[in-house]
């Protein structure tokens, strides 16, 4: 904890709303509690798996920089907003790199997992390509709900919106995914 103590001086007295016990360990606790979540959010936002570690690192570095202005309420929502901006920057980076040097679009980056069947890999790849054509907010909501298993209430708290808005996004995302799948099936005449 020495590193943590040096990097994060005790500010517990300045944060009456913070539920953590010790100021200097606040962010370390946040990190341990939310690291996996941040990776999941980043993937739901469209981050390729091979980049998630770097993106998560960037998110927590920004969180560390902004720590002294954080009011201590809704830690997950705060981190989610940071991850959202980090992911927006990453999309821009990939776009620029692709324009200048060529390379894969974000949606095309799908890594095969050890021992994975061809069918499963192809299904994941197809899903990623379909999701990439969706509005980012809808896509993120859909993945958080359908794949990562978050409830609509949890997603609403993360995104700072009403549960009804989450439900609407989810409904539209499902409809859109269904329509895209239908179109793809009609085009290929078989499985997408």
């Amino acid at each position, binding site marked *: 904890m020495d590193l943590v103590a040096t990097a994060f001086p005790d500010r517990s007295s300045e944060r009456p709303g913070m539920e953590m016990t010790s100021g200097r360990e606040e962010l370390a606790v946040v990190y341990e509690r939310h690291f996996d979540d941040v990776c999941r959010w980043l993937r739901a936002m469209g981050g390729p798996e091979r980049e*998630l570690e770097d993106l998560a690192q960037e998110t927590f570095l920004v969180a560390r920089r902004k720590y002294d202005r954080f009011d201590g309420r809704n830690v997950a929502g705060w981190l989610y907003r940071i991850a959202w901006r980090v992911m927006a920057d990453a999309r821009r980076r990939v776009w620029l790199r692709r324009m200048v040097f060529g390379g894969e679009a974000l949606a095309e980056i799908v890594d095969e997992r050890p021992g994975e069947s061809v069918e499963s890999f192809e299904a994941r790849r197809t899903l990623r390509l379909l999701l990439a054509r969706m509005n980012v907010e809808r896509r993120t909501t859909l993945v958080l709900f359908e794949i990562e298993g978050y409830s609509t209430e949890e997603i609403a708290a993360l995104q700072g919106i009403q549960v009804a808005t989450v439900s609407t996004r989810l409904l539209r995302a499902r409809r859109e995914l269904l329509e895209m799948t239908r179109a793809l099936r009609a085009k290929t005449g078989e499985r997408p």
Partner: protein
Amino acid sequence: VKDPTRLREDTTDGDAAAQEVARLLRAETALVPPREWRERVREAVFRSVEPLTSRTGARRGRLRRLWIPMLALAGAAAGASMTGVAWWASSPASREAHRVDGPAAPPVAASPARVESVAPVPSVPSVLEPIPSTSTDAPAPHATAVHHWGTKRVAKETPEDAALVLGALEALRAGDPVHAGALVDEYLHRLPAGPLAEEARGVAVDAAVARADGSAPQLARQYLEHHPRGRFAGRALDALNAGGTR
């Protein structure tokens, strides 16, 4: 309000497309990040001890300034893309000789007409050809900016910044690795975590190899530290193993 049933768990018989969607969703599973990610990121985040300062001033006016650089950047990137293609397509033989990442691609003719018809842009411009310096002067002192992994910052790039990396590529191709090294140093100094940081570090390694001033292994090590699985990792490993005297 009760959550709807997740599509992947929905057992009701829908149409073929609905079943297909369920199949696609079932192919993906909830993410369980590996333990080593958590440990590495913890180390990178907590080992940095830079003071926590307010960045309110720096952020002020961000939205107002958003559109102008974006439009300028789009124009610069479009021009830069053609430059990159032209550079890549101009000397297939030497790139072929240094190719380290898989089966050889068919050669691309260097005529301007052919260059324009190259589509899409080659996915991996995997090598930066090392060109021996034609300068007879002693190599200029090469100030290498060391950018700690744990202190990388998210910064905005301007067209001028992108031009630094492209200028470095052209300088390297024109046989001036000293200038190329200076340009990418400038880029990395401005934007250590910029959109083209990986390319800049790759060019820095090639420029150092071409200068043969012994700085290549250190730069290669820096590249590998930042981008262990990067597109120029093979080149960096070569430079590291060869001691920069290729």
